[in-house]
């Protein structure tokens, strides 16, 4: 008897997850015009970054920040904006190097 309850519960959860997955596919399709409109906004306003973290230049525009920005006015000063902890420099073949891939230049 217990196994029937368990199998029924697992099937219910799996169906629920399947519903979430199908909902995702439909929602992405339904909101496609929204994404296109955002893309158009980026094209027309020539935007380069998400307006997520507005507390500092390099968190508002991580792709445009100058190379010393994360260190503010001194290369040895400690990063003090929490959002800076979310952004790690990309791994570049054995060494860490800056936002984007700008150190090559």
């Amino acid at each position, binding site marked *: 008897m217990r196994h029937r309850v368990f199998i029924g519960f697992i099937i219910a959860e799996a169906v629920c997850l399947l519903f979430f997955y199908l909902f995702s596919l439909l929602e992405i399709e339904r909101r496609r015009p929204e994404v296109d409109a955002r893309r158009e906004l980026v094209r027309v306003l020539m935007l380069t970054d998400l307006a997520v973290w507005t507390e500092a230049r390099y968190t*508002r525009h991580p792709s445009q920040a100058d190379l010393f920005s994360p260190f503010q006015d001194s290369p040895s000063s400690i990063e003090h904006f929490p959002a800076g902890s979310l952004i790690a420099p990309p791994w570049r073949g054995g060494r860490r190097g800056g936002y*984007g891939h700008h150190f090559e230049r």
Partner: protein
Amino acid sequence: MNKHLKILEFALSSLSRRPCKNLGITAVFSLVVFVLSSILLLTHSFRIEALRVFNSSPHVIVQRVLGGRHDLVPIEYIKGIEEIPGVGDVTPRFWGYYYDSYVDANYTVMAAGGETSSSITMLEGSFVKEGQTGVCVLGRGISERRMTERGGVFILTASDGRFYVCDVIGVFSAESALLTNDLVIVSPEDLKRLFAIPEGMATDLVVEVHNPLEVATVAKKIKNRFPDTRPITREEILATYDTIFNWRSGLMLTVFTAAVLAFCILAWDKATGLSAEEKREIGILKAIGWETSDVLELKFWEGAVVSVLSFLTGLGAGYVHVFFLGAPLFLPALKGWSTLFPDLRLLPYIDLYQILILASLTVLPYIASTMVPSWKAAITDPDAVMRG
């Protein structure tokens, strides 16, 4: 089939004999999967959104760097850049930051306006037209924080200390908040006056390249021709967002690692041995005629019941947390010191590959850690096992 179902029934009875312990393990296991899946779903959704929308960002942005800092770029550079083969239009951009001490928030003030702006649909009201001064369009976040709607007045303090008053003719819609939440759009004339940008200078230049395959070459030529500039290509913008919202980056990795370690402790505790009661149970089963394979199947079912149930529960809760509730548990960490954080209305992008990896990293090790010590006990003489 009937035999397997009977062993499953026995496994469920066996688990229900220790309800507190097994419910506790299931709760912790579900919580670990919930945290891990929330991180994976959230970062993947952010990453795909950024990569999709910034696919139409400028081919190359040319900044001028002076003393290691971003500086205003002379508009006369446009002529030299346009001479490079393959370069299309070169457009100056005017923008800057404004700290509003009334609401303790930073705004990004941008100049825009012209015929192309008619294609902007995520707007309530109208956009700044060419030559139209004294008007502005606000991001949803600023509009709410300053309690200014369309038809209202927006006041900023200019660089010379005078007040710059503009009529709010439009507010960006909530659907665009991820891009426009802190934006103030004014005309180029107004922006130059606001920030006292000297004539003949721009914040940076946007370069259009006819053939997208030549963007890197054009960027290199711009750098060679104007050594004080820093060209930033679209590929680099995309690479930046790919890095920021990669689950292996920064704080997300820290939370991810902590959750994985918690799971490892849980699995390790299971793998390091059985309790005396569990050993005695295996010994009795062997003594009454169970095969080693039957004992292993029983332990497989015990592990599978806990891990599959926890995985499905944790994954479902993670989905609801991120896509229905807007990830409220991660919001304090995500927000940081940002005072104008947009409402998260993320699209539910799901990477099945990541989900499968998560399943294989949690369900399989747990089942294995349940079976290995039981296998050791099952191959030992029943009498020796029962005597401990």
